[in-house]
């Protein structure tokens, strides 16, 4: 099996780290994994995204055109990846930054108000973790525990104090996504 995930958003939204957390989790789970960033033509600011590939054996291309899973933290990313997502794939969208609903009906779109949730937790920078938590509902290969474990073991000492809030963010995102899948969507 092989799963590809793209996480996209503005420069400051923690896109790259969000991806790395999943990558660490996959590695610790004994899987093959690649993480690759890509910066838009603009050298600074602009949009950033990263692609994570998780597989059982040697990974070929670290880049994919039509991923089965994606996180869009802002509107441009939503526009782009809603188009490119694989049929039947799942797209987690940061509701806080988009003002429209889905266009495609052959993919599952999960809207999560990442900014709001993060601010409720008390650290707006955690919006990426909220989104990652939400994504996990559609990534059976990795459990919430796997990701928390990864954070625990790879977060630099000086940031360890932030762990609890990170866990909370993951949880809240996960629940928000579950709730929505369960029909109680935020729309």
């Amino acid at each position, binding site marked *: 099996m092989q799963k590809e995930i793209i996480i996209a958003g503005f420069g400051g939204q923690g896109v790259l780290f969000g991806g790395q957390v999943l990558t660490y989790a996959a590695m610790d789970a004994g899987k093959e994994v690649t993480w690759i960033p890509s910066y838009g033509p603009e050298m*600074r*600011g602009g949009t950033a995204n990263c692609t994570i590939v998780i597989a059982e054996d040697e990974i070929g291309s670290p880049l994919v055109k039509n991923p089965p899973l994606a996180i869009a933290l802002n509107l441009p990313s939503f526009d782009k990846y809603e188009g490119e997502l694989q049929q039947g794939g799942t797209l987690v969208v940061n509701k806080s930054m988009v003002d429209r609903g889905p266009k495609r009906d052959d993919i599952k779109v999960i809207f999560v108000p990442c900014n709001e949730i993060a601010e409720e937790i008390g650290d707006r920078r955690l919006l990426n973790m909220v989104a990652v938590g939400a994504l996990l509902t559609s990534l059976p290969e990795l459990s919430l525990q796997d990701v928390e474990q990864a954070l625990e073991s790879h977060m630099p000492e000086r940031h360890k104090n932030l762990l609890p809030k990170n866990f909370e963010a993951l949880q809240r995102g996960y629940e928000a996504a579950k709730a929505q899948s369960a029909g109680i969507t935020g729309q």
Partner: protein
Amino acid sequence: MVATANNLVYERPVGFTDAPTHYCPGCTHGTAHRLVAEVLEEMGILDKVIGVAPVGCSVFAYNYFDTDFVEAPHGRAPAMATGIKRVLPDRIVFTYQGDGDLASIGMGEIVHSAARGENITVIFINNANYGMTGGQMAPTTLPGMKTTSSPNGRDVETQGYPIRTCELLATLDGSGYVVRRSLHDPKNIRLAKKAIRLAFETQVRGLGFSMVELLSTCPTNWNLTPVESLKFVEDKMVSYFPLGDYKVSQSVAQVKI
């Protein structure tokens, strides 16, 4: 000019194209661009100008001036400018270069352009680091200053001492006008503009090589706010890179604007 009510005091210079710059917020590269655009406009020479962009954050300078522009290999802008000026002596040719571009990889070209007394104008942005590539040490990085390639602060024993470019170029007979200015406050910005004007006047009159070094900020890689960055220039840089005129040839000294 007759004074009227509702008077326009200042507006974006026409020499500055309407493209927003790609520079980080508060980066004084923009200020330097604006001053050059104002000067070229005021001198009425936009039409005759060919600019030479460097490799560095200002690699896209060509997008912002309403003049012809070329983009040089890293450090070679003065050589390209020489090639252009020699075949188009009646045009106005200037390079716009960062400190890595001009004082590191481009040292040979800048020294020899000055030695030849090439009739070109150089706008030299000294921001004490390599901005575009992510804030590595530059020849202008201050002793002890932390950069991504001097993580423990520049150790002069192993990484050497900052180069004072104006002082160095002032030793060359071909230099007509070589001065250092700063962009950290309104007063100095005004002085910087005057200097840029005089540099281009030097070229227009064929009085040899002219260069204005401008102490500039890099908030992004300095990890300071734009306002703090200006303070850093004022407090730290000016003392190591004294502002002043390092070479004003007799003929240039005559120039009245």
